[in-house]
């Protein structure tokens, strides 16, 4: 960058004369635009188109079928079952991760001995591949030899081993716990950076006025943290919505479809039954739902920012 700057001072523009500036800019944007369009726009548009066809690799059909897939989707109990599970998973994990993450961020914001080490160590769960986390939680919550059962049993909280992944009442909760363990550090980190932007002078001024810790947090830190909180929540919600590996490794969607999410369902429809048309409709429905979630977050965020101004 600096080399270009020095060089540009010496030489006179040659081609610049022949081409107007705007055209140059557009020309230089083309590679980026083309690569982005080919890996991002084209797949999305093609996915949308596929969802309007009855494409299936097995039956070899590939015809435009209008909204037939969406009509089928509307009446598909399995889809709605997966949709509700996904929404529940997204809401529960995002809220828990935000609350716990905020707590962690507040602690890590304080000065104490070994803070750097704790900050680094905190990120370990997040840095682990999800498949490893999944296997680990598979063993932790194992119905026969799991340590969770062992602890609960010896603490007298349960009177017999619980088969966490084998019962529809507990399977989803267990997966949510695994996700919270894994991703809370990520939230904590995002919120910590947000907290550090809150000017110390404001907090000091509040202390001078006699505000206690809780009041400082509620009236100064939290309002100023709100935009960060919303953006972090948005990231997390959109990410949680796509949950796949945890479910795929731990339960495969069972028992009795109680952990089926939209990602696992669309994987099954797309790649096990090779119905690319219907599978794309499921994916598009996911896309639309994610769009709505993002919209709600953004509207709220804008309102927050306006109010702050």
């Amino acid at each position: 960058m600096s080399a270009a700057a020095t060089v540009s001072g010496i030489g006179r523009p040659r081609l610049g004369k022949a081409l107007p500036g705007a055209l140059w800019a557009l020309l230089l944007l083309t590679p980026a635009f083309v690569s982005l369009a080919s890996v991002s726009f084209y797949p999305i548009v093609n996915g949308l188109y596929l969802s309007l066809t009855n494409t299936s690799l097995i039956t070899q059909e590939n015809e435009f079928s209008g909204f037939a897939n969406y009509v089928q989707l509307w009446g598909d109990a399995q889809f709605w079952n997966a949709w509700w599970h996904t929404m529940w998973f997204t809401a529960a994990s995002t809220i828990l991760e935000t609350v716990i993450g905020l707590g962690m961020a507040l602690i890590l914001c304080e000065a104490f001995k070994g803070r750097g080490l704790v900050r680094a160590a905190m990120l370990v769960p997040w840095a682990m591949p999800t498949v490893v986390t999944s296997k680990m939680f598979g063993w932790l919550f194992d119905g026969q030899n799991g340590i969770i059962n062992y602890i609960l049993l010896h603490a007298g909280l349960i009177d017999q081993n619980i088969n966490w992944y084998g019962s529809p009442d507990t399977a989803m909760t267990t997966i949510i716990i695994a996700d919270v363990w894994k991703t809370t550090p990520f939230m904590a980190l995002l919120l910590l950076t947000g907290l550090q932007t809150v000017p110390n002078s404001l907090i000091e001024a509040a202390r001078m006025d006699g505000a206690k810790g809780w009041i400082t947090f509620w009236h100064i830190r939290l309002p100023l943290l709100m935009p960060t909180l919303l953006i972090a929540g948005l990231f997390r919600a959109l990410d949680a919505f796509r949950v796949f590996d945890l479910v795929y490794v731990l339960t495969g969607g069972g028992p009795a479809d109680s952990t089926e999410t939209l990602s696992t369902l669309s994987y099954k429809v797309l790649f096990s039954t090779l119905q690319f048309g219907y599978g794309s409709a499921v994916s598009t429905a996911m896309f639309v739902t994610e769009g709505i979630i993002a919209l709600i977050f953004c509207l709220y965020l804008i309102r927050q920012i306006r109010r702050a101004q």
Partner: protein
Amino acid sequence: MTDMKKGPVSGSKPVAHVTIADRRQFLIGSAGLLGAATLGLGTGLGVRRARAQSRAEISFASAAFFGKETFGDLIKAFNESQDRVLVKNIELPPPSSSTEVYQGLVQQLARRTGTPDVFSQDVIWIAGFAAAGWALPLDEYFPEDKRSAYFTGTLNACTYGGKLTALPWFMDSGMFYYRKDVLEKHGGKVPDNWADMATIAAAAQKAGDVDFGYLWQGKQAEVLVCDAVEIITSNNGAILAPDGKSSLINQKEAVEAIQFLHDTINKTKISPQDVLSWDEEPSRQPFTSGKAMFMRNWSYVYPIAQDAKASQVVDKVGVAPLPAFPGGKSAATLGGYQLGVNANSKQREAAIELLTWLSSTETQQRIALNFGLAPTRSALFQDEKIKTEQPFMASLEKVFTGATARPITPEYAKVTLALQSGISKALVSGNVQAEMDALADQINKIVG
């Protein structure tokens, strides 16, 4: 940012530009030349070899199995054994990634280019490939008299719409593992019906000999369908009607069978509730660590049970056909890979030659010895060499005789997802009849 934008516009020293461009040009040029050279060399050689020997060139695609050798070695042996056909081996992912193998095969076959000419397929794909018109009917090459050497169960799985569209290759099936030492204490006779099995299992559990009476696989996955096919068939029931156009899963026989599985957890309590989240490996572990009396599983368990490093039950394990209901016959879900010829193959004769060789007695023997994969020719179970080197495999003839195909329908992929979900719901809730009725409706919509 502004620097970046301005840089190229105003231009740097022309000299620098030229050198860089020159060097780049040179690099591209030389790379191209190199590429062309290797290409020329490659094609030149290929052409020469083909002309010199004028062999028909075909390709063979299969999931990658390993043992003392690979399928690549097998193909090499075929290429060296004759000079009419030259086979190129296309290696697909291992059988543990069967979804990926399936995708890979479907994509290639759907192109209808004739590649691969010969392929191996999981038994559950055969009907789909046949219905799509990708698999060449083999009846004229393998008439009735040539087929009788194979197990009936595998032949049924290789037949779609009355035509033989795949040739049996190697197989596996569900089987009944038992603990010889514990059984000695409880009568010593291997139970051949489910009720006796439950009684013995409960007794052994009560006596404290084992923690679990009977282990099976109830995870919402393909293996649940396998377990279900076995128990339903052993009660003279079926998942699909013989014509494949409607479901029989809500009939009395099937409901009784699924009810029995539900009861093993909730009534007879010979199975832990954990089986609902177990597939093969989680159910194998308690068995080989000596905690269970009976288990349904595939043949891979036996070598592990006999390995002192991984097992507490060395020499204490026996294998038998699975029990049946009164009036029913023992059934074992068929697994394994069978051979097919691409209907669009341009080298049919060569493809048939490879097919015949791969499924021949000699090659099946070689696969049994070197890969540990059981032959589909029943006579090979009397083979002296297999008997000495793979005594366990040789003992499985009785088990394999009961081998039963999973529902034969081109819509199998959809049917199995419905089955996994429906049976899992029935096992969890215990409303077997209601769930089976709902499941039958769903399957009727798919296959009807």
